[in-house]
């Protein structure tokens, strides 16, 4: 008989080993899935994880790693702060969209002016857009005790409709021959979030992501607010006695994650994507949830997890064109990863024992 025994002390090895075990399990079961789809499993896995880094065209794919990874890390860092305190912002996708709309909108208001201050204004507007959108669930939670999970999620669908509305109306390119979508910011120097070093994939979003990692690390380890976040997550009652103001914590965590998601959206629309369009968002806000958990809600872990997740995106694209692997397969792959991660987490607090329980 197989039983679970609670460990006297939480394991120290497993929290670190779990993500690795989850990745290996996902590779194995993902391979089975690919085989079931009639694709060569080993080659598919190799294409996803090896090709972008060391393959023939790696010089092209490696910079893409930064481009895809940066928004994921930026959003996940914000989410992780809340998740640690038991504040569940699930609507990062909506905040990402609003950040993009606000950022692009603020920039386009100046078109066609060329000035050094346009891009900084867009950055602030983007962060503000995401922040405002996150403040809705935050204020409703602190004022009325409304569930932030459901409200932030509902706002994703509202933001998607709003995105459709502005790309057909307010922000539509007047020279776009009637097609939906805004002007392309890539062809307007003052608003273009260009590569800082040509061919490296390094743009301002990557810089912001790295700053966010450092900021979160310092916050969590050296700052009172970070201590309050950790305390609230681990012992909510003790946190109350220690004088933590839960309402302020909710506003801070949701606000920060909203602003970071907004920034991610703004950097994306002014850089890699270039324009506001109806299907501008590609689910980074949801994938970032996986990144946050895979990174153990730890800033450095999230950095690594963001890289890994970016790898599956790029590798997935390659597998799509080389092996005709359906795009949705990668989505399943990512979902599986979260499953295995949560399942293996068991081993941190429990030991698997085989045999009959000892009689105490």
């Amino acid at each position: 008989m197989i039983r679970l025994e609670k460990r006297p002390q939480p394991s120290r090895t497993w929290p670190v080993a779990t993500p690795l075990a989850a990745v290996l399990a996902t590779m194995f079961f993902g391979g089975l899935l690919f085989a079931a789809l009639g694709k060569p499993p080993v080659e598919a896995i190799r294409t996803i994880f090896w090709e972008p880094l060391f393959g023939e065209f790696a010089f092209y794919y490696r910079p893409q790693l930064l481009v895809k990874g940066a928004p994921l890390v930026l959003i996940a860092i914000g989410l992780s702060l809340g998740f640690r305190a038991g504040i569940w912002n699930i609507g990062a996708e909506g905040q990402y969209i609003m950040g993009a709309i606000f950022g692009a909108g603020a920039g386009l208001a100046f078109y066609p002016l060329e000035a050094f201050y346009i891009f900084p204004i867009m950055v602030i507007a983007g962060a503000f857009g995401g922040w405002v959108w996150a403040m809705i669930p935050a204020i409703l939670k602190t004022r009325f005790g409304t569930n932030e999970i459901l409200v932030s999620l509902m706002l994703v669908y509202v933001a998607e409709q709003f995105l459709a509305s502005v790309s057909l109306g307010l922000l539509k390119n007047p020279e776009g021959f009637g097609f939906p979508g805004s002007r392309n910011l890539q062809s307007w120097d003052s608003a273009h979030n260009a590569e800082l070093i040509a061919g490296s994939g390094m743009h301002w979003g990557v810089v912001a992501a790295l700053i966010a990692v450092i900021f979160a690390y310092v916050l969590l380890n050296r700052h009172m607010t970070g201590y309050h976040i950790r305390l609230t997550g681990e012992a909510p009652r003790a946190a109350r006695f220690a004088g933590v103001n839960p309402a302020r914590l909710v506003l801070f965590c949701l606000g920060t994650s909203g602003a970071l998601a907004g920034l991610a959206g703004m950097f994306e629309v002014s850089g890699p994507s270039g324009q506001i369009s109806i299907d501008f968002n590609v689910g980074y806000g949801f994938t970032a949830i996986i990144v946050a958990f895979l990174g153990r809600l730890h800033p450095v872990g999230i950095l690594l997890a963001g890289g890994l997740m970016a790898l599956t995106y790029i590798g997935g694209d390659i597998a799509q064109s080389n092996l005709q692997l359906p795009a949705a397969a990668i989505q399943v792959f990512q979902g599986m990863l979260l499953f295995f991660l949560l399942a293996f987490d068991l081993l941190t607090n429990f030991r698997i024992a085989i045999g009959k329980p000892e009689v105490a």
Partner: protein
Amino acid sequence: MDLSAINPVLLIASLMVAATPLLLAAIGELVVEKSGVLNLGVEGMMIVGAIAGFAVAVESGSPLLGFVAAAIAGAALSVLFAILTQFAQANQVASGLSLTLFGLGLSALMGQSYVGVKPPRMGDIDIPVLSDLPVIGPILFGHDIILYFGIALTAAVWWVLKYSRIGLVLRAVGENHDAAHALGYKVIRIRLAAIMFGGACAGLGGAYISLIRVPQWTEGMTAGIGWIALALVVFASWKPWRALLGAYLFGGVTVVQLNLQAAGVAIPVEYLAMSPYLITILVLVILSADKSSAPASLGRNFHASR
């Protein structure tokens, strides 16, 4: 704009159709939450039910078989959630989210060859005389069998929760799992059954969307209905009849905004399409003051050897 084109009888009849997927998913989740488990994977189970039901209905030519398959698929997916939360002691919020993310991907994968396919039509029940009655006929007697099944299920869940022994045990587990365990009830097993019931209901709800309400398959076609169903459980204060009322209310909002779109009202289409989500938020705000009726153990994990 021509509001006179909106026929109130047809409006009510289509409101009932729009409400049914919500009702099915919400009733399932209500039972799950009554047992003390918060499963946020409703959207994922619905969309997997939608494609599984669609695929089986197309391949077999029988919509009814499709619904059976959808219920099985939803329940099967919910077992993953049950394994994570009941056996591996994983966080219920995170597990539910992973179920939704996984379900959205899986359904997209399964549905690739079904885009643009027309499903076999589910016939409406046609009772001679009754369904020919003016006004009442189309509203009460002109629907498909699953719609009536949804209402019957609501009644059954209400009766079981309120009057039967199984319902009593289920509620006990949801209110205080330690006490229920001490009394000798198998907490994990009961919750497992509740989770699977919820999964089956969500699957049915999903299939109702792909087979009857929209009759086609598109990726992500549940578009947040699963999440609205979760909000509906809060709205209903965990009471089945109020879930029915809420589902009809939301169904009404959806149908009215669609009718207004068709009638060409001056409000832009996107803002009309937002309205169900905005109203959900509004309802959540109004009702969130009262949390007294929530099961006391909701969202807390149970491990026997403590």
